[in-house]
């Protein structure tokens, strides 16, 4: 079973050299810490920066330099700053190759729900709807089940959705799964260390496709 850093570490292996990547709040943010040394990727934050660097050293925070999570950040050499219209031009125009974000639910056809729970205070979708409707590679980072122990990988989403048929891969504490492009279900690709196929089966409510031996992931 993976902890949050483990999920982030496994997702980092999905990156390809030369990609621009948008990381959501939460586990996705951790992905930046695990990029393989032999590849170059650049992080885009939708409030208007490419080439986002790590948090500043204490005392060097700049109120005019934040990420989309409103955290103080730094800019790496080669960074560029731009306005919100150009930022979403990059996203919508598919210049950002990968988006990693969290989810409350994912359906077996790749729908994602991550912005609204009826009856609770709705904070808004931020840039999530633009992001999931655009990038070629939408990777979801989440726990396999919710706090009540119910599967978050469903036949159809029960919550209001953020985007349809857009999720490509899901990395959870238990497994790596691909959403079948023909809508046949979640294809199980890898098991987390020490996790059995049976456990994954029991915790996946949507259609699960299991073909051949499922390898344990290598981190």
């Amino acid at each position, binding site marked *: 079973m993976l902890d949050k850093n483990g999920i982030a570490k496994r997702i980092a292996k999905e990156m390809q050299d030369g990609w621009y990547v948008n990381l959501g709040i939460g586990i996705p943010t951790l992905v930046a810490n695990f990029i393989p040394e032999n590849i170059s990727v650049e992080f885009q934050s939708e409030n*208007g920066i490419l080439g986002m660097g790590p948090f500043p050293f204490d005392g060097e925070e700049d109120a005019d*330099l934040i990420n989309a999570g409103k955290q103080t950040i730094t800019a790496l050499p080669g960074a560029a700053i731009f306005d*919100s*219209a150009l930022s979403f031009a990059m996203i*919508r125009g598919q210049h950002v190759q990968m988006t990693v974000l969290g989810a409350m639910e994912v359906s077996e056809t790749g729908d994602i729900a991550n912005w609204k729970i009826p009856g609770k*205070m709705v904070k808004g979708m931020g840039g999530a709807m633009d992001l999931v*409707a655009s990038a070629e590679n939408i990777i979801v980072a989440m726990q396999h089940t919710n706090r009540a122990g119910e599967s978050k990988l469903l036949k159809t989403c029960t919550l209001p959705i953020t*985007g349809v048929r857009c999720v490509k891969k899901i990395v959870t504490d238990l497994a790596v799964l691909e959403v079948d492009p023909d809508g046949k279900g979640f294809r199980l690709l890898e098991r987390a260390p020490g996790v059995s196929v049976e456990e994954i089966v029991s915790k996946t409510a949507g259609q699960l496709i299991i073909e051949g031996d499922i390898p344990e992931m290598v981190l």
Partner: protein
Amino acid sequence: MINKVVPNATAAIAGLESHMTVLFGGFGLCGIPENAIAAISKTDITGLTCVSNNAGVDGFGLGILLENRQIKKMISSYVGENAEFERQMLSGELEVDLVPQGTLAERCRAAGAGIPAFFTPAGFGTEVAEGKEVRWFNGKPHILEHAFDAPFAFVKAWKGDEAGNLIFKGTARNFNPVMAMAGKITVAEVEELVPAGTLDPNEIHTPGIFVQRIFQGEKFEKRIEQRTVRTR
């Protein structure tokens, strides 16, 4: 050169009236027009519809106008950080329209650019698409979104000149240039106001044609919402 300078924030908000729709630049508390907000908070203007990516925090940014009950409706993409906001929304005092962030930016840019409507993939199949025209392009569904202009826009820049030309600093740029484009009267407050001819024409982010009034802000607090640091 057309001179856009007004003496202060009070002069800059002249003509703003209750029940108007107003655009605000900024992302979180970064790059928000602090001085204009302060000036509005001192008036008895009420019933405003505010278009702003976020809604400030308790006691700062648009949170000040919320506490004063000057806002009737917020049009935003994310409104998470504000207890008073939550209270007013759940009690039904405040209306809220949530718009995807990229669509919000593009709708304002479109208004400024004379593009009345455009197709975007964002929001297809979601609540946001309800009642909207759907059309497929390149094998992908898109929804029709409309331009969003308003009688007033308030933006904040780093430097500006007498002609209204603006230069922003860092990610405080964010929504400011698009809101400037969409406002019928765009009011810019700047940290440093310089004579025309001081700024390099090549380095202007928002040309003065989009700015009707400019003033140097009396004070900029520039609060940080999430101070995150690493250790040396």
